[in-house]
């Protein structure tokens, strides 16, 4: 590799040709503050907080996008640089609705940290920002009074997710990040994936706060409140309490939920196993009866809405299965009350999800059964952490507890739903056993794992060649479906998850202060999920004893009319 030499703050350093000054500084162990920059995702070089002096060059240079050159002498902390950065920061803060104390990003805010580092305590300028929009109509809340116009959310939404819900609009002092006609996100094509929230350096984008709904339910003596937790939550919640990334806190989480006062603590993996039973059956049915192929998974509500908006010609390909969250909810309000001798109307179902789109899904009209919603309130991993803190629970000191029975037993298959490729792998485990009629030893399908944007594989089961593909991030899904539209690809089964990396990187997961670590964090969370699978007692959905029980005692068999009534749905074209 070709190297170049330069000096940064008196330190001589040799870096790969093509490196930016920011990268070179990192190697020299020199910190340069950044705000708009998010490597590989958004590199506009526009906030200018990262400026440095290069001897002999005119003006100051943005370190994040300026390539280092042979022999340059860079100063990153001269008086000029410090004063300039301070000016820039003051300009940004002058518009900013500073209400850190009541802001959800308090302590996890990149702007707040910069202000602290630079010791900015006064406000010289008088006028407030002009672009103030507060959109709280949907699961994703936008508060432009806190927006620093970095544009990260726009890049994520347009380039990675290919949703194009928001863009930089207007100019001059009116510049803002907004939707067409400033309509609320929920009226436009937003899929509620929350990926924009995850990259926002400040508190301008947030999930809708549903914790109050949950507190009220818990305090209502009339209600029987059950909670389900999605698999991705257990490997991320610990981060909110300072535990190492990827720590599995399942046991502590269950204890905390009991302490919060939930009547029963159940596991969404039960719903996941149920999904595999139904979807695996649907797949085989479609293959054997000339049904519409490829079958595409429908467990990611962000993806489902994306499909409804942009690929409505594929709606018949979507599995009719409800998502695990909804399947769980449906049985929690039918099978569970029947078994527990409760009035279904008094059962209140709360979900803890790594996902903001689940909030939208839970409110879908077409999912109501006899006028009842499957799920009454959805909170994210972040919101659960907040509730635990508010309740004064010392999370890290908690001992472990187990999920409650009936809807609380999980298999490794249900757990890996959290990772991209996980639904596929879980389905293959079950489909393979059905086709061979054996209890196969082949459990792990490594060809469907990993973080590449799209993956494809041909799996041979008992002589049947199954062509499968996996996409995560709706932008990748769009690419995949385009190849099918153009007739360039032919698959039997496709798994799509709306969030890059799958649910482990969902829009409701903990915010990283250093967002350049996203990939690393995703890998650790994913590894933790796979290790939970490896150590699970049962690793195939159809081996779950509670699943066997529910079919034997309530649902009859996968695809039965009862199953259809409770566990399946239909979709709406939204173009």
């Amino acid at each position: 590799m070709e190297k170049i030499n330069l000096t940064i703050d008196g330190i001589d350093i040799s870096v790969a040709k093509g490196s930016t000054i920011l990268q070179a500084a990192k190697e020299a162990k020199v910190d340069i503050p950044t705000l708009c920059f998010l490597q590989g995702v958004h590199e506009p070089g526009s906030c200018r907080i990262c400026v440095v002096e290069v001897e002999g060059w005119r003006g100051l240079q943005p370190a994040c996008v300026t390539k280092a050159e042979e022999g340059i002498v860079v100063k990153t902390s001269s008086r000029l640089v410090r004063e300039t950065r301070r000016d820039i920061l003051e300009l940004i803060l002058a518009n900013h609705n500073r209400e850190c104390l009541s802001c959800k990003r308090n302590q996890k805010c990149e702007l707040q940290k910069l202000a602290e580092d630079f010791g900015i305590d006064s406000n010289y300028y008088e006028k407030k920002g002009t672009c103030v929009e507060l959109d709280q109509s949907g699961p994703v809340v936008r508060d432009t009074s806190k927006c620093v116009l970095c544009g990260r959310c726009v890049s994520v939404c347009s380039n990675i997710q290919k949703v194009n819900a928001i863009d930089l609009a207007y100019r001059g002092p009116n510049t803002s990040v907004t939707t067409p006609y400033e309509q609320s996100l929920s009226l436009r094509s937003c899929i509620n994936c929350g990926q924009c929230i995850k990259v926002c350096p400040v508190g301008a984008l947030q999930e809708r706060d549903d914790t109050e709904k949950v507190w009220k339910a818990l305090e209502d003596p009339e209600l029987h409140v059950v909670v389900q937790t999605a698999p991705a939550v257990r490997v991320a919640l610990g981060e909110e309490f300072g535990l190492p990334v990827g720590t599995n806190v399942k046991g502590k989480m269950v204890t905390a939920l009991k302490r919060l006062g939930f009547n029963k603590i159940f596991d969404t993996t039960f719903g996941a196993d149920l999904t595999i039973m139904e979807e695996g059956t649907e797949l085989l049915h479609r293959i054997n009866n000339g049904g519409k192929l490829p079958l595409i998974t429908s467990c990611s509500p962000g993806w489902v809405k994306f499909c409804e908006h942009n690929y409505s010609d594929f709606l018949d390909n979507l599995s009719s299965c409800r998502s695990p969250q909804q399947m769980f909810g449906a049985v929690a309000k039918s099978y569970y009350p029947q078994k527990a001798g409760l009035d279904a109307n008094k059962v209140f179902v709360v979900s803890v999800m790594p996902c903001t789109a689940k909030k939208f899904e839970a409110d879908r009209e077409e999912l109501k059964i006899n006028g009842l919603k499957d799920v009454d309130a959805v909170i994210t991993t972040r919101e659960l952490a907040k509730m635990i803190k508010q309740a004064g629970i010392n999370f890290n000191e908690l001992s472990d507890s187990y999920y409650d029975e009936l809807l609380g037993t999980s298999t490794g298959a249900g757990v890996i739903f959290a990772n991209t490729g996980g639904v596929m792998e879980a389905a293959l485990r079950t489909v393979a056993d059905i086709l061979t009629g054996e209890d196969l030893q082949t459990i792990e399908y490594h060809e469907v794992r990993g973080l590449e944007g799209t993956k494809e594989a041909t799996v041979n089961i008992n002589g049947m060649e199954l062509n499968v593909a996996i996409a995560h991030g709706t932008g990748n899904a769009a690419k995949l479906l385009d190849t099918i539209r153009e007739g360039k690809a032919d698959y039997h089964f496709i798994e799509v998850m709306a969030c890059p990396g799958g649910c482990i990187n969902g829009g409701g997961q903990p915010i990283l202060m250093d967002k350049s670590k996203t990939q690393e964090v995703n890998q650790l969370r994913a590894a933790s999920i796979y290790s939970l699978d490896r150590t699970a007692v049962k690793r195939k959905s159809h081996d779950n004893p509670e699943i066997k029980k529910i079919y034997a005692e309530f649902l009859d068999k996968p695809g039965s009319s009862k199953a259809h009534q409770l566990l399946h749905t239909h979709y709406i074209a939204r173009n």
Partner: protein
Amino acid sequence: MGNTKILSSRFGKIKPDSVEEFVAAGGYEGLKKAITMKPEEIIQEIKNAYLFGRGGAAYPTGVKWEQAYAIPLEKGPKYMICNADEGEPGTFKDRHIMAEDPLMLIEGMTIGAFIFGAKEGYIYCRGEYSGIQKILKSAIKNATEAGYLGENIMGTGLNFNIKVVSGAGAYVCGENTALVESIEGKTGRPRRKPPYIKNAGLNMMPTVLNNVETYACIPWIVKEGGETFLSVGTEFSGGTKLMCLSGNVVQRGVYEVPFGTTLRELIYGLGGGIAGGKTLKFVHLGGSSGACFPEELLDTKICYNDLRKNGLSLGSGAVLVVDDTHCVVDYLKTVMEFFEDESCGKCTPCREGNRRMVEILEKLTSGRGAKEDLERLQRLARTMRNTSFCGLGQSAPVPVTTLLKHFAAEFEAHVQGRCPSGKCSMSGVRR
């Protein structure tokens, strides 16, 4: 003062879009000669002419064309673009060229196309000039019919077409990369450089971009020779310049003057001096992003070197004359409101800096200013100049620093609650 007319000789004398009248008055002789020359020879003539870009940045056109020509033919310049955005307040010279002799510009672009083998040309004309766009379109149509544009131009095998693209009200689109974005139908926010447009401009293909007046000089240079062009001006500034005289002067308008003419000769000679028998307070040279200076500097010659020596630049050639009934703080507020409005909003220093400068100037003009506000203006000016993403934010503070330098006492008076010329309200109300 010489009176060689390079650009304005046909102004008002021909029907602007008539090819016959244009040719009868000496038009297309440059192109006719050019097609008998080698591209390198034409470029050499332009270099000999010491022609500097007339759009404001004063980049040597010969050098620009040489670099563009050097780009290998496989990736060879595909597009010729004419910057007719003319948004710099106080500038209206390109309007005159396009309204009175548009074929001269078209001829210049066609010579460029011949050099580079370009097939497509664009004239990006500001939306406010909708009437002029019609003249341009008609001139292009007539030139095509007469065989000066279109297929196999004058039997050379050259195919070249020009499309007129309208702006829609954005000053920043005069900036190279923003302009290219706008031709692509997008918002006109500047791109990061590198890559420069000569390598990756319109549709990310090699692009040659020049101002209207720059192109308009080309036919004459080819016809008469680069050295003749140079001899009209000064040692290092070839030819003539269209100067736009506006403000409190008797005879406002566009004047073609040879380089070397002094500002005093322009304002007091050609312009007839200050209107209404008043006295000059300052001149704002080169447009809103240029420097403001008082009477002492009027003997500076219009010539890139002399101006630079005095800390000035010619910019677009706008000369706004302001008499002593006006207030510099009030005037500056007007100027900065322009930049506040026209900032594309991309980068922090320009978007927020201009707006906060306006806020401070509002304080000063309403008598609420303090000493620290003047320091703040200087600080902001430095930060904007050093860190803005494009030329707009980098040069917007020029009028601020130059007025603060030359009229410090007047700013001080405002801090003390007094507007010497009585233009400011000094009402003290918070807005």
